[in-house]
């Protein structure tokens, strides 16, 4: 007999069943009827369940083998969370480059960037700074760091996924309940953590896989994009168009460094940049 799965996805193999699935697939059999199926078997199962709940071991998160009661005594016992659990965010300030990508990507618009004086983080050792040039630049002595309103956050994990530096991380902390909505708004300072380990330079990764494309018809060479790029990957080079017989400088993006944060595009006053998927 062809199972529904095989009909729907021909040729696809079912993943191996976990111990949990196997147990419950077995439990669903209902071929016993009469006094065996309606009296003896339910009573036996109830007895087994009672014994397991009383003498069994604590449940683990994957409900593999023998386990105890299905409920945890919550404030006293806590569930062992999986590694990828998405709880309250934290931001490693030393890694964050203030690119605003998280604020832009957040589907609930719950991230707000806060502006700080640069020297608040500049007392860290030089080698840990990595590519974080916005903190070192003498002209720009201000930095931006994200703060999150957890009253609106749906813990989708997009911010963690697209953060180019890995500064935004989601922890196991899930006890955020509070009686006032204001207490759910976490300022940037509250999310700040020091790095657990930072090995070498912070690597920049373009996780959103977009880079800006220059429309040289519109570009006036004003250098706004270059000044605001958090990774300083824009260089002004001679463009094809001339003004007063001199070529207009157009931005050229170093695609190995660009993180696709679209700050340049939103800063451009002449609509000369747009983001393109690569």
């Amino acid at each position, binding site marked *: 007999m062809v199972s529904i799965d095989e009909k729907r996805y021909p040729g696809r193999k079912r993943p191996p069943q976990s111990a949990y699935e196997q147990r419950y697939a077995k439990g669903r059999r209902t071929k016993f009827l009469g006094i065996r199926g309606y009296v003896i078997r339910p*009573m036996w199962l109830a007895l087994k369940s009672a014994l397991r709940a009383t003498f069994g071991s604590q449940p683990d998160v994957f409900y593999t083998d023998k386990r105890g009661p299905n*409920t945890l005594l919550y404030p006293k016992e806590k569930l062992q969370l999986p590694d990828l659990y998405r709880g309250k965010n934290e931001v490693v300030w030393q890694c964050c480059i203030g690119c605003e990508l998280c604020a832009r990507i957040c589907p609930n618009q719950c991230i707000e960037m806060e502006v700080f004086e640069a020297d608040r983080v500049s007392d860290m050792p030089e080698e840990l700074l990595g590519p974080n040039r916005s903190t070192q630049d003498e002209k720009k002595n201000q930095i931006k760091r994200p703060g999150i309103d957890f009253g609106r956050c749906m813990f989708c994990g997009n911010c963690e996924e697209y953060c180019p530096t890995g500064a935004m991380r989601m922890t196991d902390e899930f006890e955020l309940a509070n009686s006032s909505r204001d207490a759910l708004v976490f300022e940037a300072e509250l999310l700040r953590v020091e790095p657990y380990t930072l090995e070498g330079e912070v690597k920049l990764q373009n996780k959103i896989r977009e880079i800006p494309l220059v429309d040289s018809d519109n570009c006036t060479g004003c250098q706004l994009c270059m000044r605001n790029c958090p990774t300083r990957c824009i260089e002004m080079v001679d463009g094809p168009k001339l003004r007063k017989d001199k070529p207009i400088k157009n931005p050229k993006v170093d695609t190995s460094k660009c993180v696709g944060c679209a700050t340049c595009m939103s800063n451009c006053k002449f609509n000369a940049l747009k983001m393109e998927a690569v």
Partner: protein
Amino acid sequence: MDIYQVVEAILVWIISGLGDTIITPLFGLLATIIEFFLSLIDGFFDLFGWDTDIVGFFEPLTSFIRDFTEFLLSDTVMSILTALVVGIVILVLVMLQVIIFIYMERKIFGRIGDRRGPKYVGLIDHGFLQQIADALKLFLKEIITPEKSDKMLYHVAPVILISSTLMILAALPFSEGFYISAPKGGILFIMAMFAVAPIAILVGGWASNNKYTLIGGMRSAAMMMSYEIPLLLTIAAVIILAGTFDSIGIVQAQSDFGMWYGIPMILGFIIFMICIVAEVERIPFDLPEAEAELVEGWTTEYGGMRLGLIWLTEYTRMYCGAAIGAILFLGGWSGPTIPVPGLDVISGEIWISVKIYIIILLFIWIRWSLPRVRTDQILHFGWRRLLPLALFNVFIAIGIKILGDMWGWF
């Protein structure tokens, strides 16, 4: 243990002890005061020249007050007082056990349902006081009478239920001496009192003026037809074997027979257990209170402590049913004397409690394992399965009786 003797001894000890120190002086003082006022009235009448003897007229009353301790210690008053105290003691003991049953039920249900059961309220972190907290909660609820209900019947129905249940306790012996009363037709009386409850349920369901309660009450009446007859037939088998309607006599007959009746009549015991589950209206036969179908069954419109009392009564009925099962089929309080000083006096009570608790564990286990049956299913089951089997069980009992008479077993 003969509870009447013990209680009477304690009462005599207390009253005669108090008599010398409190009761006699106090009532003597009272009599003196009364006499003083009487003599005042007498003096008042003397002013008018009437020669009266009011003090002498009230002499019987004052001497009665003076001799109040002796009045209390007289035979009639003492036996009435003793019966009252015994009744209260047994009622309190049963109610305490009922609280334990509710705790057991919730805890075991939790474990069967893969949970913990009550946990936080109570001693040593096991939720033992949860029942008391819940009772307190019910106690604080407002008592609401539905507007269009039949007011009198609505209030009377729980009274019928509760009082008929307490009447069972009045005739239920827990050992040769531990009972409120042990009439000769005890088992008959107990079964009659058990059978009153469906009437209370029907009345309560009808008086609440609600579709669900009415259906619940009707179901109770319909169900009664199917389980009551096999139940009485199994009891008839036991009575044929024992030759008496007396609970104490039945237990005595079992120890003369040398075997619990539940062993030769295992069929009867199983039928009895099924029917008694139906009698005390627990899953799988809780049709009148099918909370999945009928909100809360016939108790839908009841609230507050009245509902709490109805629940308590249901557990008391469960206790009585288990006790009758233990007496009829499991040898009641017969068992070896426990060789521990202090416990050997009450070993009979301990044995019957052990048997009752085992039967109640079985009740709880059944309740949380089996699905509820439908009305037609229980009628079908009762008339076409249980009734013939119960009749067969009667024949077994008659056979054992005849053979026993022939070969001199008894």
